[in-house]
């Protein structure tokens, strides 16, 4: 199934946000993605962040810093975002397995240079940030209270093909 990219963003101003923070291991006993829904980012260690708050509930995009999604291979991490309607992450860098899991599920893990991520965080001073994604044009547009910034991003042709196919199972099944 094709995913929806873009929408209201939640900005998590910390590097090395790990998979145990995104979805604690005690919830890995679930065997459906939907069952994970209430536990998104439950153990995130970040001042001012409320896992039960409105900002997260309304968010369709997560913006963060370096090495996002480090730690476990659990695909429950991208899934808990997916079932909460968050199909796009924008960060300075990712842990390999998390990044691959995002693309394998047909979702977007967009990487931007640190300077661009800094500008995204600065934009939040103006108000809530809204992100629009142009996958074909490889551009992210962020706006807050009338202010607007556009960033170009790189994506490997393989990752792009996965997103367009709807995921790795679809891609692999058609090809191998």
């Amino acid at each position, binding site marked *: 199934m094709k995913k929806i990219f873009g929408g209201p963003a939640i900005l998590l101003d910390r590097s*090395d946000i*790990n998979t*145990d*923070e995104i979805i*604690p*291991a*005690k919830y*890995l*006993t*679930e*065997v*459906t*993605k939907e069952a994970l829904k209430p536990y998104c980012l439950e*153990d995130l*260690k970040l001042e001012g962040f409320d896992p039960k708050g409105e900002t997260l509930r309304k968010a369709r995009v997560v913006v963060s810093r*370096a*090495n996002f999604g*480090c*730690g*476990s*291979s*659990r*695909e429950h991490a*991208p899934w808990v975002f997916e079932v909460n309607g968050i199909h796009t992450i924008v960060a300075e*860098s*990712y*842990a*390999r*397995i998390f990044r*691959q*899991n995002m693309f*394998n*599920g047909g979702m977007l893990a967009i990487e931007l240079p640190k300077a661009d991520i800094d500008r995204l965080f600065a934009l939040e001073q103006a108000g809530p940030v809204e992100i629009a994604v142009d996958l074909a044009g490889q551009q992210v547009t962020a706006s807050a209270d009338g202010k607007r910034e556009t960033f170009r991003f790189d994506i*490997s*042709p*393989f990752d792009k*093909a996965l997103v367009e196919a709807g*995921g*790795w*199972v679809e891609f*692999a*099944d058609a*090809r*191998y």
Partner: protein
Amino acid sequence: MGKTIAEKIFDAHLRDEPFPGTKVLDLDRVLCHEITTPVAIADLEWRGKDRVFDNTRIKAVIDHVTPSKDSKTALQAKMLRDWARRHDIRDFFDVGRNGVCHAIFPEKGYIRPGFTVIMGDSHTCTHGAFGAFAAGVGTTDLEVGILKGVCAFREPATIRVDLVGALPAGVYAKDVILHVIGQLGVNGATDRVLEFRGPVVEAMSMEARMTLCNMAIEAGGTCGICLPDAVTVDYLWPFIEEEFPSRDAALDAYRVWHSDADAVYEKVLTFDVSTLEPQVTYGYKPDHVKAVAELTGTRVDQVYIGTCTNGRIEDLRQAAAVLKGRKIAETVRGIVSPATPKIFNEALAEGIIQVFMDAGFCVTNPTCGACLGMSNGVLAEGEVCASTSNRNFNGRMGKGGMVHLMSPSTAAATAITGVITDARSI
């Protein structure tokens, strides 16, 4: 231009290169456990593709929560068990015969030099100790691996880590890898293979090499890898003696996987371990590493010895050597989980289990156990655990709990005193 071991394995397994830079590899092993596999099984059923590419190359174990603790974990175990039976996956390990995946699969001889290995578990990098390319993957990669026997990778560059000098007494592979991660940082090896080389690695047992490779992921590495040598052949010999006329012949055959002398590395890091002290983590990231001396006296509530990092026989021997004839502090709960039934049996035969019990440890069945706070040994808010595992993330062993990572020897000394302690001091 020469090639690294990882490049040679990639070349030998290349099925497809759908786009420049993306390599789809044929897989020798697809390993499964009960936490990340059931969703893949359910999805394959839902798609009407409940098939396996090769029932002899797929191995499965129930290890994270075993015996099952509640209805949910019983369902996960049942889904894996039923699937293994349905597809005649003979190498499936259930209660009584099961152990920690990254200990039991190598122990059964399933991992060989030059193999490609995936598993839905980030510590799959452990198997690189055998000269295999082994990578942790998510459930979708696992699902495609089960169905098609392939997995896609960006071909990783290799960082060579030369370990030179000689390890001082009381300093172990765990101390080395904690130190290396402390220097590299938690994303210092992202999308990279860490190739461990040098006289220190050559002198290490397979158990110690597995400890080394196990934590490559904690620096972000795709895989840790060691070159196969006589130690590798000796370990594998009971499983390969039909395949080769002699150990030397096996060694010669495995030499094809050795990195060439003119192989190209992204960088070469050299660590002289001769003056290395026992290491311990102090924060919530595995690169928050200090010498034990700097944290001496830090109070702990629980000590956990086991896991895919340090639950092997050599690890239990090291801990028992410290514990023998001593009692653990009254303020400490000691838990030990031998990683496999074979290790448990060896520890029994050697009197090690008795040493643990006499010291006041609780001995559990082989399982991942307390490592990730989803089974037994969960910490209460504010509690601290000294652990031989590989991850010290906030809440890893239970919400609000803290974990200090260390060697089995340091963990045993810490259990005795109730505070972080250098084993060489007692």
